[in-house]
């Protein structure tokens, strides 16, 4: 997501956490984890590009049944073996971890087989196109303690958002009032292909039978962020959708709005369109003392006139947004920090660095190693007969892992996305039984 490109305010400096902390600047990457990437389409290529930026994520295998995609992605990872069948990749003992970036409706069996093969799994979000498949994936992850599973909800690994969650839970914005998000981009989402059959296949996102549409395929990250920041799950969703511009036979609307209802009378709105780019994407959270705006990996706080003084904001950097003054919220600002440049400059140097995907994959590499070494050490000392004890030890290791979305985060966000999709297609309000979020 490149929300920073469309800042309303002119000349705003962009502070990215990785460039802010002195520690990050000279950090030592951990031990390597060897990767296989399954699904070499558009997003698969982003994943390969991002893994290539990480110093400890060698790509040893690629897989796609569509030869042209496989060959094209292979040029970015010339050392990697190429497989047409994912089962052959899973049989490759070189591969320690896999990223699954196939169409969402194809994830389930690949995830289950990968976990069975003992591979650590990063499954792109949404986990699946149906609640049933997402549940099966989450249960497979839960039932395979020796393998590390991460859902591709990238914001959970973003240092800025991780910092903000703790910050807002201190009550800095007062009592929560509401939330709002948007994702705007003028683009058809339609992809060209040499044959009609391939075109239908590659445009699965526009097919309501195969995908969860805009709200699931792109909106799931912001849906998850809402639940995470508010610390609640929605009780009901009202959705509407229409095809305004791209009337090319697609069954998915090109413009959607939803309203999520939470406890305590809190509502959250979310609109997504492929017909207008204004203001791109961001999340807003409103409290009785302040509003919080999160764009990409940056955030600002807008205080109410009658809000109590926090003290530090007097010295903080500020930006003007029309008639409002936004106070920068910088991750780890209380620690020794050095501002070395802007995120936009870094993005020009390497478009794959310091993105939400970058942080999510960086966390995956680290966490997969911590998990794997923990399992190896436990089994070397105590054997593997007592699975409950192993699970207890793996819980102990959580504090040594980097922030990341687990199978439960992935499942819960998937439930919300599927219900929102159902509401949008039916132009209706749907109540969500909280028991649906329960995996057991």
């Amino acid at each position, binding site marked *: 997501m490149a929300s920073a490109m469309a800042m309303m305010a002119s000349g705003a400096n962009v502070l990215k956490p990785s460039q802010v902390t002195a520690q990050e600047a000279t950090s*030592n990457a*951990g031990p390597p984890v060897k990767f296989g990437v399954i699904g070499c389409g558009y997003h698969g290529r982003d994943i390969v590009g991002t893994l290539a930026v990480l110093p400890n994520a060698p790509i040893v295998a690629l897989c796609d049944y569509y030869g042209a995609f496989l060959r094209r992605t292979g040029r970015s990872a010339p050392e990697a073996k190429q497989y047409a069948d994912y089962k052959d990749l899973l049989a490759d003992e070189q591969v320690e971890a896999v990223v699954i970036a196939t169409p969402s409706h194809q994830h389930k069996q690949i995830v289950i087989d990968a976990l069975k093969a003992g591979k650590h799994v990063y499954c792109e979000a949404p986990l699946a196109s149906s609640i049933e498949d997402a549940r099966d994936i989450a249960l497979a992850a839960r039932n395979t303690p020796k393998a590390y599973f991460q859902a591709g909800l990238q914001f959970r690994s973003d240092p800025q958002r991780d910092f903000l969650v703790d910050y807002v839970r201190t009550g800095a914005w007062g009592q929560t009032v509401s939330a709002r998000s948007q994702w705007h981009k003028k683009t058809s989402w339609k992809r060209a292909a040499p044959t009609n059959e391939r075109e239908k296949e590659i445009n699965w996102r526009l097919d309501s039978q195969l995908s969860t549409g805009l709200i699931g395929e792109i909106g799931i990250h912001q849906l998850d962020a809402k639940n995470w920041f508010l610390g609640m799950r929605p009780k009901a969703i009202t959705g509407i959708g229409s095809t305004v511009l791209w009337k090319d036979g697609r069954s998915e609307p090109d413009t959607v709005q939803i309203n999520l209802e939470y406890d305590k009378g809190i509502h959250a709105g979310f609109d997504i369109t492929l017909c207008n780019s204004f203001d791109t994407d961001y999340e807003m959270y409103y409290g009785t003392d302040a509003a919080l705006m999160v764009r990409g990996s940056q955030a600002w706080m807008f205080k109410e006139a009658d809000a109590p003084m926090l003290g530090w904001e007097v010295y903080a950097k500020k930006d003007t947004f029309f008639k409002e003054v936004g106070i920068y919220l910088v991750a780890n600002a209380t620690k020794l920090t050095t501002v070395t440049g802007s995120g936009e400059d870094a993005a020009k140097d390497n478009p794959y660095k310091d993105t939400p995907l970058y942080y999510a994959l960086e966390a995956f590499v680290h966490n997969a190693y911590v998990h794997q070494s*923990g399992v190896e050490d*436990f089994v070397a*000392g*105590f054997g593997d007969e007592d699975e409950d004890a192993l699970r207890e030890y793996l819980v*102990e*290791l959580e504090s*040594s892992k980097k922030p990341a979305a687990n199978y439960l985060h992935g499942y819960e966000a998937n439930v919300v996305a599927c219900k929102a999709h159902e509401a949008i297609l039916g132009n209706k309000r749907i109540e969500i039984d909280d028991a649906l979020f329960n995996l057991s």
Partner: protein
Amino acid sequence: MKKHAGMIGKWSVVTLLWATTLMAQAQSVSYKGMFRGSSMKVDGTSTVHDWTIESKLISGSLELTGDFPADLSVSEVPALSGTPKADVKISARSLKSGKPKMDQVMLGAMKADDHPWITYSLKSLTPSKAARQSGDALAYDSVGELSVSGVKKEIKMPVTFTPTDKGLKINGKVQIKMTDYGIDPPAPKIALGLITVGDELDLTFEWHTQKK
């Protein structure tokens, strides 16, 4: 004849003692390390703040002679007739601070890639001369070899044994120096040279075992 009878009597006593010793050794009890409840903490200092790393994985085995007290009611901790054995190991990378970057620095200093295991081998247990009351844990002074970062050193350490439902709980604490084990106290570059770690470390462990 009388002389012979006296000799036979002496030999009988010796044989009895020998047999008793053999029986005691034959009845030695073996224990193995348990995950639950076990922990080894390493407390250190630095120019910025004190720090702790901890492992929950203390594995290995312990073998005690049959005359090892079965409960805490003994008025005096007895000397052991045979040689106790214990071989314990802890994976260096299982020592965690909760801060991934600090773990990296620590593992680098310990040369953990080349020496992944911290090991301890018990050589002797001598009853502690410290005053004791019935119910106190059984206190011994231990001598053993601690191997860290590939360097083996003899260490003396007071330890206590407490019977549990499943076996024995062993507690101990000892101070060591990093430089004794060829470890340079880290001065991590990530802190712009502002942090220097102190040489002395306090090792504190609680090891839960169960009878094999």
